[in-house]
């Protein structure tokens, strides 16, 4: 093999390796394949409190991730948090009367939205609003409730 040929081949290998490394980072290290492409529909739900929930948090049914939160805004009239989420179109037959709640993965884990399927024959569509919601649990409130109930008992 001539000298310039070796040069060209090694440069080719270098560029190929670099692009392969980028591909590994994209496919193996990050989550580029999930939910970035493909059909999906979006639904909204109003919560009293969404503390800890972020954009791109997972939306799951029975613990399986089926979508992501796309935006969280405050309704200026009711002061409720309006959470918009996209659901993969493969899960298109979720009943209309399903309820959603904000849960925590593990004790210190991330917040996610869990959908509990209801029993109605109609299904959620693009733009549907879920009525039954359960807010995120604020730990401070829980602790203060517990403490106050304890002191009430002592008084009696």
């Amino acid at each position, binding site marked *: 093999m001539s000298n*310039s040929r070796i*040069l*060209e081949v*090694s*440069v080719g*290998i*270098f*560029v190929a*390796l*670099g*692009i392969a*490394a*980028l591909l*590994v*980072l*994209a496919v*193996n*290290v*990050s*989550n*580029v394949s*999930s939910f*970035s492409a493909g059909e999906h529909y979006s639904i909204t739900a109003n919560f009293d409190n969404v503390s800890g929930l972020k954009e*791109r948090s997972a939306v799951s049914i029975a613990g399986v991730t089926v979508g992501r939160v796309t935006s969280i805004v405050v309704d200026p009239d009711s002061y409720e948090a309006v959470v918009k989420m996209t659901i993969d179109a493969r899960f298109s037959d979720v009943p209309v009367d399903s309820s959603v709640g904000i849960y925590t993965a593990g004790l210190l884990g991330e917040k996610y939205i869990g959908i509990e399927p209801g029993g109605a024959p109609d299904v959620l569509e693009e733009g549907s609003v879920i009525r039954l919601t359960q807010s995120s649990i604020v730990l401070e409130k829980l602790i203060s409730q517990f403490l106050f109930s304890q002191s009430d008992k002592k008084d009696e």
Partner: protein
Amino acid sequence: MFDWFAQIGKSAIDFWARLGGEVLLFLQTVMAFSKIIFRPGLIIQQLFSIGVRSMLIIIVSGFFVGMVLGLQGYNTLIDFGAEESLGVMVALSLVRELGPVVTALLFAGRAGSALTAEIGLMKATEQLSGLEMMAVNPVERILAPRLFAGIISMPLLAAMFSAVGVFGGYLVGVDLLGVDTGAYWSQMQARVDFDQDIVQGVIKSVVFGVVTTWIAVYEGYTCLPTSEGVSRSTTRTVVYSALAVLGLDFLLTALML
């Protein structure tokens, strides 16, 4: 007394003139990209000496940096019972910060210093003026292919660094210390975002590629044509590149976070 004031004015004017000259030369070099794109032979030669020859040091250091991250991260995370997050920690620190920054520092030391010394010696031995005598523009023939090859090489090298580092962290964390394989990869994939983290790392490495290669090329092109001048310029290349990379890294992180 007046001499002293004149001295201040002179150094201020010199400073702005140098800065303006550097920017003009940079623009000229970038303009010359359109001409050298039709001469891939020049670029391939530079890709070989800048990119291929830096590959070994980048891959080996990436591997060791990943292994160290795995060890340190494991020892810290296990106190919180969060050793499953090792993959996230290794991948995020590599992709967002260590990959581009350490690669740029190594790149400045390995390829940048060589570029400065090469161009500086060309100047000292009057090869650059020789080219001009033959009506060959040294900006097009010497500077442009090197800058172009540097800009292409840096992101590729940084990607290799990060990928190999993640693998190094895997070897130490999973094979040696016993983190669960599935947890290592799945937590990583759940938390590392393509648009945010990977793209941010690539943008950083492209910027560092432009800056380090340009500093190297410029220092070589403007060095004093003596052996002492070449040695000073080579040192300056490494020092300036390191400072520019670390400073810019803070700026870019603050901008993109």
